[in-house]
């Protein structure tokens, strides 16, 4: 390889990103400006995570968080005086959702994304919309009855999630020697358990229940009873640096909560079988006094 040419290649590889790496000029409301200019709000959704978000038989994007975002978009139309705003949907999985919000592809990321202090350094979050914990789904026949029984076993976990961190920490704390197997989305996470590739799947129990209910082996699948992860503050994720946009979104959620629409939406998705899950204390408290502070739980 001719060294000069090789240098040239490396040089050009360096130049391309350098072109764009300079910080974005300070804008007060970049997200709103973009939405107004394009006449479009882009919702990021996670296609395989019912009941929070999925694509139904008719090919429509629906789900608990998606409906909240649609309500928010309706409110934005009023607040921005632009009834003609269109809504576009872009699929995003846990491993690419943050870059897609950062790079402006997604305006509102509507799934189950945990609001954490660390993530707040680079993205913004709305008021929390649900507070799920994490549980291990296992097969009864595997003999795993306690979190201690996971010693040396393989566990499927979603890449790039708070749960991945929780698993690492649990593993360190109890010295279990767990082998993590990374999955792209909830469907794959569950598939790894169902096909016997892993001994356990760690995820939001609401999501796992959806898949367990549909599985042919439903009777053999259960949750490890003696462990659940620290509940997350799941919220709508937005690009950082547009406080006006964030307060509009928060105002919309507040209005949804106050008007009873929020409860109606909750009941529609989560009080239905197979979940039959009454609102937990954290969410009730959130409805009375909404917050986007990740440290409240």
């Amino acid at each position, binding site marked *: 390889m001719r060294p000069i040419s090789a240098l040239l290649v490396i040089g050009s590889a360096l130049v391309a990103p350098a072109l764009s790496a*300079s910080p974005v000029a300070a804008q007060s409301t970049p997200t709103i400006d973009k939405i107004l200019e394009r006449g479009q709000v882009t919702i990021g959704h996670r296609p395989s995570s019912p009941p929070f978000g999925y694509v139904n038989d008719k090919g429509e994007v629906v789900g608990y968080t998606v409906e909240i975002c649609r309500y928010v978009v309706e409110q934005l139309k009023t607040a921005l005086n632009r009834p003609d705003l269109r809504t576009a949907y872009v699929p995003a999985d846990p491993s690419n959702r943050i*870059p897609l919000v950062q790079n402006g592809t997604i305006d509102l990321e509507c799934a189950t994304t945990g609001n954490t202090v660390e993530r707040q350094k680079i993205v913004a979050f709305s008021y929390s919309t649900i507070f799920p914990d994490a549980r291990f789904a296992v097969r009864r026949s595997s003999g795993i009855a306690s979190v201690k029984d996971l010693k040396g076993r393989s566990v499927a976990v979603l890449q790039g999630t708070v749960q991945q961190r929780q698993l690492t920490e649990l593993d360190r704390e109890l010295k279990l020697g767990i082998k993590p197997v990374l999955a792209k989305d909830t469907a794959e996470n569950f598939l790894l358990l169902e096909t016997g590739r892993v001994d356990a799947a760690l995820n939001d129990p609401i999501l796992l229940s959806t898949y367990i209910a549909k599985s042919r082996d439903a009777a053999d699948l259960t949750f490890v009873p003696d462990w659940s992860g620290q509940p997350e503050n799941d919220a709508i994720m937005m690009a950082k640096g547009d406080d006006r946009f964030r307060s509009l979104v928060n105002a919309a959620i507040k209005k949804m909560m106050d008007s009873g629409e929020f409860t109606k939406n909750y009941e529609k998705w989560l009080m239905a079988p197979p979940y039959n899950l009454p609102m937990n204390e954290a969410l009730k408290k959130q409805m009375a006094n909404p917050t986007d502070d990740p440290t409240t739980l």
Partner: protein
Amino acid sequence: MFDFSFLTAPASLSFGESNLELILSGWKASVLAFLAAMALALLLGIPVGVFRTVPRPGLLRRAAGCFVELFRNVPMLVQLFLWFFVLPELLPRSAGNWLKRDLPDPEFWTLAAALGFFMSARVAEIVRAGLQSLPRGQREASLAIGFREVHVYVLILLPQVLRIVFPPLTTEFANCFKATAIGLTIGYIELTQRTREISEQTFRTFEIFLVATLVYMLSIFTITMLLQAAERALRLPGLAPRTAGH
């Protein structure tokens, strides 16, 4: 403007390794999968390529032809999914469970097998083209002086062919290294997967992708240079390697 300091910082999802060490461990995983897959590809591809040129049409030649068409015409990613998600379900329960559970490092071996078979079809085609580029007289002369068919291949034809196929084979070695990236779709943690992980954890998407690109380029340059050196060392005077192929 650029900040590469995250490279030496401890990675958040590891046991004290830095992000740079994570990248290197991803690179090592890519290299291992590449070596295993390429070994399998040569082991399978050379005989299959030879069988495709046997003079009498028969079962062997047809089987080799089917093998090549099968593994060449299905996308690599789909083949990988067949090995990983489908094969264990089609096998008897015990064998399927062994593949999924007892096989150490199932992601690694599945990737190596899938990639090895995929690449072997390409290796076979290169070997076949090489064999067909040799003058027919060589074979006829060898047979005339009493060589058996097997010996014609092993002693006369293959030593020449394996030299002249070096340039196209070098391209396939490079392709194979790049192709290890699809391992991420079955949870094999290689270089591209590590890159995404670190980008997700540190939010330094530009910098980490740049590092990964350079690591891939250096790896491909190294593979190319090593094979070119090997070609020069093994070259026979009078046999021009560049004329191989079509």
